[in-house]
C-alpha cells in the first residue's frame, strides 16, 4: 500500500487486458467533422492521458464513449465485445463512467441527492431514507479526502467543491472504465493531489482511465501513456518520458508557434481606451489601464480573478463604476448601445451569447446597426447584402451562402461572423473575451490572423484570455489579475508561461 503511494505512477502490469478499443470512430455534426477516424486502446489499470487543443475532439470522443452522442461511423469494443448503439444507460451498465467537464449536477438539489440521484436509498415503506443517503454521500466525498456537507445545495458550493461532488458521484457506482474530462481545471494543488491518490488506488483495482487535461505538468505525475488528438484525428501515442512540453505542444498544434500566431509589428498610436478605477460585480476592483491604437493588450487571470467581469463592465452589460475615456474624451457607458456608439465591439466568451441562431449571416451581421436608431427606421437591406458578400469573401466565412442559419456554422466561422459584425458597425476598439474557446486549430489561426489585420488597420484589441499560449503569441502587453486586481503588467519580452502563472496565483 505505502509502496505504491510513494511511486508516482505505477505502470499497468505487463500483458494487462485491453479494456476498451476504439476503431476509426467518426463523428460529424452539421457542418463540422469533429472526429475523423479515431482509434485507440485502453488497458486495464492504465491512465491514458488525452491531449489536444480546444476543439480537437476530446470531449466529443468522451461523450461518444459515455453514450451521449452516437458515432457516425466506427466500432467500439469493450472487453473484446463490440458494442453498438451505446446509450447513457448501457454505457453505465458496461461500467463506463464519465466525469464531465461542464458539470452534470443538478444545482438545486443537495450533495446527497446528486450523489444518490436515481438510486436513493429507501426504507421498508418505500420512503427515502435520508439518513442513509447522507451517510452514503459523506462516505463518497470522504474517499476524496474532503468534507462537504451532504445536505448543502450544490448550486451554492464553490466550483472546486462541485467538481469534487461530480467526481464522487461517478466513482460511487464503481466504473471499470473511467473517463475524466479536465477534472482538475478548478481544483487547487492539494485537491488535485488527493484526486491523484484516488486515481492511483483505482489503477490498482484494474480500472482503466482516459484522462483529459490541459496541464502538461500532470503528465509525469499520473500518465502511463499520452495520446494526442488534433483536429479530430489521433496524431500519436507516446510514453511519458518522451512527452516533454515542446513535443506535446508541437503535436497538439501541428505547427510552430510563429505560424500559429502571426503577430504583426505595429507602431503604438494614441491612447484609444483609457480606463480608470473600473469596478464591477463581486470580484473586479479598481482596474486601470490604457489601450493604444494598434495595440493588443492582454488580460490574464485564473478562474475568479476578475477578468471574467471586464468585458461585461466595459460593454455596459453589467453595472460598473469607474471612468472610461475613449479617444481622449470621457464617455459614460451604461448600455451596450452606448458602447457601440462609442466604437466598441465585443466578441463574447460564449458565441451563443452573440448570435441569433435561426437567422442567417446578414441579420446577425447588421444587428448592431439597429442600436441607437428609431424602431420605425427602414432596414438597410441593400447595404446588408453588399457587406455580407464582402465579409464572406474577405474573412473566408464558410459555408459561403447567405441563406443558411448561423447555427449550422462551425465555431470558427461563427466567430468570423461576429468579427465581421463589429467591423461593419465601425468599431475601432474590439474586446475579445476568450476568442478561441471551442474552435478548431485552423480557425484559431484565422482568428489570430484577423486580429493582426485589425491592429494593422489602426484598431485596438483588448484580449481577455486564459490560454497562455495565445497571450504570449499575440499580446503586446499583458495585465495579470489576481483577486479582482491587477497584480502585474508584463511587456512582450517578459511574457512566459511561468511569469504569467506566477503573478496570477
Amino acid at each position: 500500500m505505502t509502496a505504491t503511494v510513494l511511486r508516482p505512477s505505477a505502470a499497468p502490469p505487463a500483458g494487462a487486458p485491453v479494456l476498451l478499443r476504439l476503431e476509426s470512430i467518426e463523428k460529424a455534426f452539421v457542418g463540422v467533422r469533429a472526429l475523423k477516424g479515431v482509434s485507440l486502446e485502453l488497458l486495464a489499470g492504465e491512465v491514458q492521458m488525452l491531449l489536444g487543443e480546444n476543439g480537437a475532439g476530446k470531449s466529443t470522443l468522451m461523450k461518444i464513449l459515455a453514450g451521449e452522442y452516437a458515432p457516425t461511423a466506427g466500432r467500439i469494443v469493450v472487453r473484446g465485445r463490440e458494442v453498438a448503439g451505446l446509450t447513457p444507460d448501457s454505457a453505465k451498465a458496461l461500467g463506463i463512467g464519465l466525469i464531465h467537464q461542464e458539470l452534470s449536477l443538478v444545482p438545486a438539489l443537495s450533495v446527497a441527492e446528486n450523489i444518490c440521484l436515481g438510486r436513493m436509498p429507501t426504507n421498508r415503506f418505500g420512503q427515502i431514507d435520508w439518513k442513509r443517503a447522507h451517510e452514503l454521500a459523506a462516505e463518497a466525498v470522504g474517499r476524496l479526502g474532503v468534507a462537504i456537507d451532504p445536505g448543502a445545495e450544490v448550486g451554492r458550493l464553490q466550483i472546486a467543491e462541485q467538481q469534487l461532488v461530480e467526481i464522487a458521484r461517478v466513482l460511487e457506482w464503481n466504473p471499470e472504465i473511467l473517463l475524466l474530462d479536465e477534472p482538475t481545471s478548478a481544483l487547487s494543488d492539494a485537491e488535485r493531489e488527493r484526486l491523484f491518490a484516488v486515481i492511483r488506488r483505482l489503477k490498482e483495482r484494474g480500472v482503466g482511465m482516459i484522462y483529459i487535461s490541459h496541464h502538461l505538468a500532470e503528465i509525469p505525475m499520473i500518465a502511463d501513456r499520452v495520446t494526442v488528438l488534433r483536429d479530430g484525428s489521433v496524431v500519436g501515442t507516446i510514453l511519458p518520458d518522451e512527452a516533454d512540453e515542446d513535443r506535446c505542444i508541437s503535436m497538439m498544434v501541428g505547427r510552430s508557434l510563429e505560424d500559429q500566431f502571426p503577430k504583426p509589428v505595429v507602431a503604438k498610436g494614441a491612447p484609444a481606451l483609457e480606463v480608470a478605477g473600473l469596478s464591477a460585480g463581486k470580484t473586479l476592483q479598481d482596474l486601470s489601464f490604457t489601450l493604444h491604437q494598434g495595440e493588443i493588450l492582454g488580460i490574464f487571470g485564473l478562474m475568479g480573478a476578475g477578468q471574467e467581469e471586464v468585458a461585461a463592465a466595459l460593454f455596459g452589460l453589467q453595472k460598473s463604476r469607474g471612468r472610461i475615456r475613449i479617444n481622449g474624451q470621457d464617455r459614460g457607458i451604461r448600455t451596450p448601445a452606448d458602447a457601440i456608439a462609442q466604437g466598441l465591439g465585443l466578441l463574447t466568451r460564449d458565441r451563443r451569447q452573440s448570435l441569433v441562431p435561426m437567422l442567417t449571416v446578414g441579420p446577425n451581421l447588421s444587428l448592431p446597426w439597429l442600436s441607437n436608431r428609431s424602431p420605425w427606421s427602414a432596414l438597410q437591406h441593400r447595404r446588408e447584402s453588399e457587406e455580407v458578400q464582402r465579409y464572406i469573401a474577405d474573412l473566408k466565412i464558410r459555408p459561403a451562402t447567405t441563406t443558411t442559419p448561423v447555427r449550422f456554422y462551425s465555431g470558427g466561422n461563427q466567430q468570423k461572423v461576429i468579427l465581421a459584425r463589429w467591423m461593419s458597425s465601425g468599431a475601432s476598439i474590439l474586446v475579445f473575451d476568450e476568442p478561441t474557446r471551442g474552435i478548431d486549430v485552423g480557425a484559431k489561426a484565422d482568428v489570430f490572423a484577423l486580429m493582426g489585420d485589425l491592429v494593422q488597420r489602426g484598431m485596438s484589441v483588448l484580449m481577455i484570455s486564459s490560454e497562455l499560449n495565445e497571450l504570449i503569441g499575440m499580446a503586446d502587453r499583458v495585465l495579470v489579475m489576481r483577486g479582482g486586481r491587477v497584480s502585474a503588467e508584463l511587456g512582450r519580452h517578459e511574457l512566459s508561461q511561468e511569469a504569467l502563472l506566477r503573478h496570477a496565483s
Partner: protein
Amino acid sequence: MASQRSLPSAPGGAGTRYRDLLLRGGPFIALVILCVFLSMATPHFATLDNMFNITRQSAFTAILAVGQTFVILTGGIDLSVAAVAALSACVTTVLLTTPLVLFGYDFGILPAPLAIAIGLGVGCACGALNGWIIARFKIPDFIATLGTMTVLRGVALIVTDGLPVPSFQSMSSGAALPSALIQAGSGSVLGIPISAIIALIVALAGFYILRYRALGRAIFAVGGNREAARVAGIDIGRTKIMAYMISGLTAAIAGLIMVGRLNSANALMADGEELRSIAAVVIGGTNLFGGEGGVIGSLVGAVIIGVLNNGLNLLNVSPFWQRIVQGLVIVLVVIFDQWRRRKTAGGN
C-alpha cells in the same frame, strides 16, 4: 463528381430553396388539403357564398393573431388579447351611446371617429401596460398577461355596468351605433366582406413591419436570442413594449369589428378568443419559443381554424365532437410542424 455529391449534406446547398418553401409553405399546404377534402365531402363547401362566410368568420381571429404573432416572435405570449378587444369595444360603444361627463363638463355623445380612435388608443395603452410590466418587473409574459386579462375584463364590466351596449335603456332613447362601424363588421364590397379586407390590410402592415422596419428585425432578434440582442445594443424592454402595443392595437381593431358584426358590445364578449389566436399563430408555423415565423402564416392559421369550423358545421358534426376535432387538429398540426422542422433543419 464524388465531392459534388457530398456537398449538399451541408445546409445551404442546392436543397435550401426547396426546403425553405416546404418550411414556410407548410400551413398553406395543410389548408389546401383541408379544402380539397371538404369540397369532396360536401357540395355546400366550395361555393362563393360559403367562402365569403368563412373569411368573415375568420377575420376576427386573424386580426388578433397578427398582433399575437408579434408577441410570440419575441418569445412572449399575450393572454389578454380577447379582454383588450372587449374593453376597447366597450369603451367605444359606451362613448357612442351615452353622454360623456368628465370633471363636470358634459361632452355629450362623441363623434364616431373620435370614439373609435379612443377605443384603439385604449388597446395600445393596454398593450403598453403589458409590455411595461414584463420589461420593468421581469415577470414571465404568461403570468403578466394572465393578470391583466382578468383585470381588463373587470374594467370592462365597470365601464359597461355589466350591461350590453347599447343597452335597452339607451336604445329606447334613440342611441345607435354608427353605420360605419356596422359596415366594418357586416358590410361587404363586391361580395367580399369588409372585415376580411381589414384583416388582410392588418396582416400586410404586420408583414411590412417585420420585414422592412428595424422594429421587426429587433423582434426576431429578441425572440431568437435575447442575450445576443442585448449584446448587439438592442433595447429589449422597448422592443417588448412595442410588440405588446401592436398586439393591443390589433386586439382593439378586432374588438370593433366584432361590435360591427354583433351590433353590440359587452364586457364578456370574445370569450376564449385569446387561445384561438394563439392556436392560429402556432398552426401558422410560428415558433412558440420565439424568433421564427411570421404573420402570413398566422393569417393562414386563422383561416384553417375558420374552415375547420365551417366544414364541421356543414358536415353536421355535433358541436360536442367539434371541440374534440378542433383540439386534435391543433395538436396534430404542431406535431407535423415539429417533425417537418427537424427534417428540414436537422440536415443529416
